[in-house]
């Protein structure tokens, strides 16, 4: 049994949680906005999801690292979250797919870990008080508290530009040409889109003109971290292309499309992060179990030209919008999964229908 050094997580409101320091050890405490994720599988996908940039991810599931890690499960080229807090960390993995255990993965990817934490108490705290800045490490509690207080969080932060590709690149695929505006796109998302078309993945700052010059059949707005309100340039870009091209947005892409359509966005108290959220497709009444990861959401009271198409059954949050005449639609959750259920993959077919020239999805 590995005996690890004691450490603490301290939140900006002063709450202290005891744990054991594992993974990559920095001189400075790990800091970030602390959010919890209730997925029971898919930790590697979550840790490599660019949407977690700037955040510390708390896993509610009891054991982490059981099945190790595998390069094919990476959702991007690196770990984007600032650290992870968990219950029990498996020293050794067991799965034929695994090439590296989670502790080794964390060392290689420079991921700080605080293990053996009462993550349930932490989750309940975040549920009550909302996502909070926090800091963890072996440092004294006062040092951690100071670090937590200095942490700025994600409000009004344009983190998408940080994680977005710096240069455009192309991926071979199906018959259509699709431009992917990358705000932090996940690999699984790209894989799903490749079934539909040849992808040209472009930086978040790409202008409408530049996109037009690529003569695409459709535009895809990816997921990404941070506050959608901080992304003014992409909103202009999308606004300019709206109606011209079929548009499909996911997560941050959904928030941007909604803003373009006249809706406003707001920050949820602790967001939706997990793989078990029920969402109803209002057009069919069918319920899908969805993978979710967002802190911001589209405000129901100000929909502008957007029509609500999907809702979260737990709390009524807008989960999907469409502007049929403009051939644009988007969802807040992650139909591509990776990790999470495959229930919503039909949405890629809807996009395919739009690309095919059908009038509505």
């Amino acid at each position, binding site marked *: *049994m590995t*005996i690890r050094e*004691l450490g603490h997580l301290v939140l900006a409101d002063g709450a202290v*949680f*005891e744990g054991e320091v594992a993974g990559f050890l920095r001189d400075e405490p790990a800091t970030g906005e602390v959010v*919890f994720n*209730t*997925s*029971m*599988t*898919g930790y*590697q*996908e979550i840790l490599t999801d660019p949407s977690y940039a700037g955040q510390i991810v708390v896993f*509610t*599931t*009891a*054991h982490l690292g*059981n*099945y190790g890690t*595998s390069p*094919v*499960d990476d959702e991007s080229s690196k770990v984007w979250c600032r650290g992870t807090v968990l*219950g*029990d960390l*498996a*020293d*050794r*993995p*067991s*799965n*034929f*797919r695994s090439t590296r255990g989670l502790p080794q993965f964390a060392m290689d990817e420079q991921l700080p870990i605080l293990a*053996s934490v*009462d*993550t*349930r*108490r932490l*989750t*309940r705290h975040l*549920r009550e008080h909302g996502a909070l800045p926090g800091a963890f490490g072996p440092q004294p509690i006062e040092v951690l508290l100071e670090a937590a207080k200095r942490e700025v969080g994600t409000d009004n932060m344009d983190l998408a530009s940080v994680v977005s590709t710096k240069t455009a690149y192309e991926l071979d695929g199906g018959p259509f040409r699709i431009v992917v505006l990358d705000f932090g796109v996940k690999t699984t998302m790209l894989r799903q889109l490749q079934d539909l078309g040849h992808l040209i993945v472009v930086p978040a700052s790409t202008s409408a003109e530049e996109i037009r010059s690529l003569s695409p059949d459709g535009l895809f707005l990816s997921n990404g971290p941070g506050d959608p309100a901080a992304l003014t340039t992409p909103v202009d870009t999308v606004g300019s292309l709206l109606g011209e091209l079929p548009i499909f947005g996911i997560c941050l892409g959904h928030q941007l499309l909604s803003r373009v359509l006249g809706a406003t966005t707001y920050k949820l108290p602790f967001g939706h992060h*997990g*793989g*078990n*959220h*029920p969402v*109803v497709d209002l057009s069919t*009444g*069918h*319920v899908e*179990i969805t993978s979710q990861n967002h802190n911001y959401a589209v405000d129901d009271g100000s929909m502008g030209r957007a029509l609500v198409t999907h809702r979260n*059954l*737990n*709390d009524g949050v807008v989960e999907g919008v469409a502007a049929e005449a403009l051939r644009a639609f988007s969802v807040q959750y992650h139909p591509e*999964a*990776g*990790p*999470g*259920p*495959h229930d919503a993959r039909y949405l890629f077919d809807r996009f395919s229908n739009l690309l095919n020239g059908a009038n509505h999805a």
Partner: protein
Amino acid sequence: MPKRNDLKSILVIGSGPIVIGQACEFDYSGTQACRVLREEGYRVILANSNPATIMTDPGTADATYVEPLTAEVIEAIIIKERPDALLPTLGGQTALNLTMELVELGILERHGVEVIGANPVAIATAEDREQFKHAMEEIGLEVPISDFAHSLDEAMVIAKRIGYPIIIRPSYILGGAGTGIAHDDVAMARLAQEGLDASPITEILVEQSIAGWKEFELEVMRDQADNCVVVCSIENFDPMGVHTGDSITVAPAQTLSDVEYQEMRDDAFACLRRVGVETGGSNVQFAVDPKTGRRLVIEMNPRVSRSSALASKATGFPIAKIAARLAVGYRLDEITNDITKATPASFEPSIDYVVTKIPRWAFEKLPGAEARLGTRMQSVGEVMAIGRTFPESLQKALRSLEQGRHGLNADPAEGDLDRMSEEELDQAISIAAPDRIFAVEAGLRRGRSVERMVELTGIDPWFLDQMERISVARVALSEQRARSVSGEAVLGELGRVGLRRLKRLGFSDVQLGYLLGCDPATIRATRKALGVLPTFKTVDTCAAEFPAETPYHYSTYEEEDEVRPSPRPRVVILGSGPNRIGQGIEFDYCCVHASMALRAAGYEVVMINCNPETVSTDYDTSDRLYFEPLTYEDVSNVLEAETKAAGVDGSLVGVIVALGGQTPLKLAGQLDPSLILGTSPASIEAAEDRAHWSAICERLSISQPPGGTAVTAEQAVAVAKRVGYPVLVRPSYVLGGRAMEIVYDEAGLERAMSRLLGSDEGSPVGGVLARDGGVSDDRPVLIDRFLEDATEVDVDAVRDAAGEIVIAGIMEHVEEAGVHSGDSACTLPTQTLGASTLSTIRSHAAALAEDLSVVGLLNVQFAVKDGDVFVLEANPRASRTVPFVAKATGIAWAMIAARVMVGTTLETLREEGLLPRVIELPRHVSVKEAVMPFNRFPGVDTLLGPEMRSTGEVMGVDVNFGLAFMKSQMAAGSALPSSGTVFFSVADRDKAQGLEVAKLFVELGFDLAATFGTAGFLRSNGIDVAQLVAKIGEEAMATDAISLINSGGIQLVINTPRGYGPRADGIHIRTAALVNAVPCLTTLAAARAAALGIAAAKDQPLVVRSLQSLNGPVA
């Protein structure tokens, strides 16, 4: 979609008696379903033959038929009640098979009854292996290479084609009966024949064995709008090859990556859609090759199952309740999550803890059965434990089993393993057996690598690695102790952090005390002083994402405790732990009734139990549920938490220990006596302590069979010399006649004592009672004169604190004294006892209750011989017969007892209407019959004796004893014939009585078959014997009994060897009867009852009656 308004009344079929593979989980699911359907405004008609269920409480359904579960009976119920629909998915395989039979016979169509919850086509697709295989292949899912055989020859041809090892599975069976793995032609031939015989359609699946693959189960629900959710994933600790009911299982699945898990989820939904389960819960089992991830579908159950009960308890998602709502038209998103009360049921629970289930076996009660696990389920119960790590939940589950273990070794009982050689240990590790897990830990501790252990066991390395953490921690602790001056000093060195690490791995105080050489009390005190205290977390379906309204708790060692303060006075009820032979659903029934009664009376009721199959562990049953082991440490933790939560304004009124069988009683002595409600621990002890008890009987002038106590064989022989043979030999403080025996001479007595003391060759160290506390001056062996041919009588009574006593029921056993009361059929009212005998029995029971200062229930057993009444034993606690008496009398005795235990007088209960002013003897006759597990254990003799072996019970109700007995036999699955041949083989000393019984059968028109000896005796007394039967070894003279039974020439076997009778022959005859499903009666008393029943049934058609019509709506 709202609920269906075209339906007004729904028939629900229960699962009948508790048998291996189908236990009280179906009482839990059935009860939930009935309640939900009534809440929705439907009239609910229930059929279930098991009286010990909450489901058959007259308040659970509108019309409750405690009647045999046969097509004929169900049709009679349908004709009487005219239900619109039948819900077959909540009564296990019994209800599903019966429904298919009703469909095939056209009964449902004839009476216009719609099957809801699962359509017959879907049931057939899932249940018929050939159809299922084709269906799966059609949707691109892999199934094991296999083919069906309908004859032995066909099976052998297929086996040649597939190659060994091969698994044989009979079609349409439950719990894997008749299933086995063959490694060669010889085993193949034997297992194939057994399988063909076991299958009601004479069909077996001959399949490539994938023993050693990982096994998973997904619990899935679907609604009519095609919304599908996975409620829970379960991973088996034991690899494929051990029946899932006999496997240690863990939730959620631990070793699947998201990619694999999501693919499995897709497959499960595809399976449900293809099979055509339109609404409800199903489970889908998968095998996964650990080397490649290749995934096969093994089977699916289109109904609520044992696993769904486990999944419900493991997640807080009530599958049965929701399945019932889906069956009447609701959609998942129209149903609210019970726990959050805010979010819908159309979601997938996320759990932030680890659940471990461990089965409990009863091999010690079944001599002749090999304690080896395979594809045929053999366990009789299970425990579940919840922890924040797998090691914690595993150790909690192991101590929940109540088999003298305090966790994963690190306790005195590990000595047996320490004495094993490396070869012996390897052997113990590689064979799947009930205790293997302890050997696996010992193997890791002795230095076998995880890789080596994977080779030996096929267990996934992740689980082994987690077990190794426990090993490493204990070795480190022992080493630290060796370096230190004392255990106390080590505790000081460990400090808060070190001690908490150990508690988080699930170590109990007893284990830590064992490793450190300290008293567990020292560990506890130090722990508390250091602030290493348990914290109670909540099972909430959502990993704390939403507030939980339902307090369903488990303990762990973390930072935050979630028990909410409340000032209401609270009562804690200790449940009965895992089901085992001798302590089963009857005690859970009593605990549930206590909870209902005390809640109604304004108490806040707290339940502690660790059995996931039960109604008591439904979070709806009590105000708060603690899913915890029933040990001193764990129970004390809850009591302290409750005391704290009660605060200064509230109070912990006390603890009820007298309703859950031996489990809570064993704890009673260790708890603060002022907290024990009802009869004091001292009184309980007085009834159990031999000398004390004899003194009471003497003082009250109540006769008891002469006897004495012994801790050595010499003492035993001396007692027997004094009282005379035969004697009944039994240990103290055990339930269910554990290790009880009747011996007829000194040699027999010496053998019996050797077995008990462990000096017998081949018996475990410490004797067969090693796990029950062994034999000592405090726990001597009781030796009593055995009264032959006496009638046994059971009495249940209640006494209140003011001293008033009421007799709840007097039951007369059908089998004579000597057959364990739990295995004996009994009747209420009594049939042969005179008024003065009954009056003596009543006054004796009352005198004993008074003398023992009973507050609550008292059970007294009497033997009546030649008009003399002897008391055998008294137990001041709930007995196994309480639910039967409640059903037979229409009075809720367990509720009354619970109220009395908190101080309410019987007079007050009369005023409240819980107890009738006048208790009249019922006008109908109720007969309870025991149901035996012998068909699972082919090598075990079916002869009844003083050691209890039945797993469950049924009840037959009718206007007279004969008809009620007939129904009880029908319900127990051995319907008596109305004509044909009766094979008679009785021991010499039974011959006189046998004559009378033989006459009865001849008068009823039966032919007799008998062995030469018996036939000669019958003929010389003027009774015609149509067929002579040879004994084994005399085959040249006539057909032997076994061939005759095998050829279908016998419709009823009466075989009564006892003592030194024709034992060798007897066991073969009884086994043949068992294999051929020919009813076999082993006592003349039962044979006489059967003749009465057959006679009564001859001139009366089958009539069904609801409990409500018999007793009125009370109870």
